[in-house]
């Protein structure tokens, strides 16, 4: 064991943030690494901010960007609000938006870039519609205006099926078959650790409440640039879904990513960074 150089900590630092969202007190776990332009990262349904470990561990990125990821309430190390035991969890568009804006305000972020994946890729569309001027740029990963449920979501939360096992197995195929084995299983492990009913509750937003098909054409990319990146192996939000979304938003920039699936930042961070860096450079150069 090498102790001469001290403990080998990663650069990310995590803290618990106390704030109110729509009048309800919350305890939210926030992790960050780096300095510079704030890059606020939103995790996928049923997972948590660990999905962004590859970004926080990238020196070239953190020299110029302050990479921040928080766990939504009920996810990761964030608590559910007091009284959670008396009802089912369901994520709504209003609650999701309010939580993101509360975190931006609490951290006093000045026009951050917001990057979200899956449900995060959907909510950036809502941010683009309602709060474009509060963000320097918006980046939607695996982003579509709507998604149909393609299996019975009740399988994700019932007493005779292990929730962690079924959630992990359900999403495993959303990872590209070419992903490195360790990153693949790290990504799946986060799903296996989700609380009972949380993944299903997030999918209420993804498959029902968060549908913005009738509004996306109103997005003004002049007010805030919008980038859409989707992995070719994603069958939840397919490349065709994202291309259709981009077709309806004037000025949206779209990239289909090869050999990546639904969790690009987590399943193969190095490959994903190859797609992300030029966009961040473009945003930085715009200097808005």
């Amino acid at each position, binding site marked *: 064991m090498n102790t001469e150089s001290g403990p080998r900590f990663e650069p990310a630092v995590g803290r618990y943030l106390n704030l109110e969202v729509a009048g309800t007190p919350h305890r939210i776990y926030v992790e960050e690494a780096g300095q510079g332009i704030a890059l606020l990262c939103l995790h996928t349904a049923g997972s948590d901010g660990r999905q962004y470990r590859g970004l926080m561990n990238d020196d070239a990125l953190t020299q110029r960007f302050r990479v921040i990821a928080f766990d939504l309430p009920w996810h990761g190390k964030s608590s559910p609000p007091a009284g959670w035991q008396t009802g089912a969890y369901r994520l709504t568009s209003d609650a999701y938006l309010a939580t993101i804006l509360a975190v931006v305000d609490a951290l006093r972020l000045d026009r951050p870039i917001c990057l979200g994946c899956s449900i995060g890729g959907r909510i950036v569309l809502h941010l683009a519609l309602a709060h474009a001027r509060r963000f320097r740029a918006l980046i939607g990963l695996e982003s579509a205006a709507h998604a149909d449920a*393609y*299996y019975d979501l009740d*399988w994700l939360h019932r007493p*005779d*099926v*292990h929730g962690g*096992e*079924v959630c*992990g*197995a*359900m999403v*495993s*195929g*959303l990872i*590209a*078959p*070419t992903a490195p*084995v360790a990153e*693949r*299983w790290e990504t799946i492990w986060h799903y296996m650790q989700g609380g009972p009913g949380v993944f299903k509750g997030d999918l209420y937003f993804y498959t029902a409440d968060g549908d913005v098909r009738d509004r996306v054409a109103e997005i003004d990319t002049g007010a805030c640039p919008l980038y859409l990146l989707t992995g*070719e*192996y*994603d*069958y*939840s939000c397919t490349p065709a879904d994202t291309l259709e979304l981009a077709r309806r938003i004037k000025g949206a920039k779209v990239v289909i990513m090869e050999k990546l699936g639904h969790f690009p930042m987590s399943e193969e961070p190095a490959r994903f960074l190859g797609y992300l860096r030029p966009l961040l450079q473009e945003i930085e150069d715009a200097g808005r």
Partner: protein
Amino acid sequence: MRDALDGLPALANAEPWLIDRGRFLEVTFLCAVGPASYLIHIHRGRLEAVEKGPFVQPRWTFALSASEAAWREFWQPVPRPGCHDLIAMLKTRQLRLEGDQHPFMANLRYFKELLALPRAGVAGV
């Protein structure tokens, strides 16, 4: 290609971690590869037998059916998008799942890994 399922017991029973995770599994399911059908009998996670059809009165708990072309692509070392996973094949309507889905869903990782075993040279499913 149909040999893929004929050879499944030898592949599966050489995977102790797969068998361990299926230790509560007692089920017979039908797998249809185009017009050919197979009954796969599982006892405590071990593949007891694979029976090749045609069957006059097959009894099974659930059935997975896809075309020969879809299974052939699924068993490629790196299948193309949409054919790379059982749930992906369900989403793209290439795979049909019938019957009592409970043992399949409760052991989803088991069945994904079991049916991917003929896909040589790929780590993880």
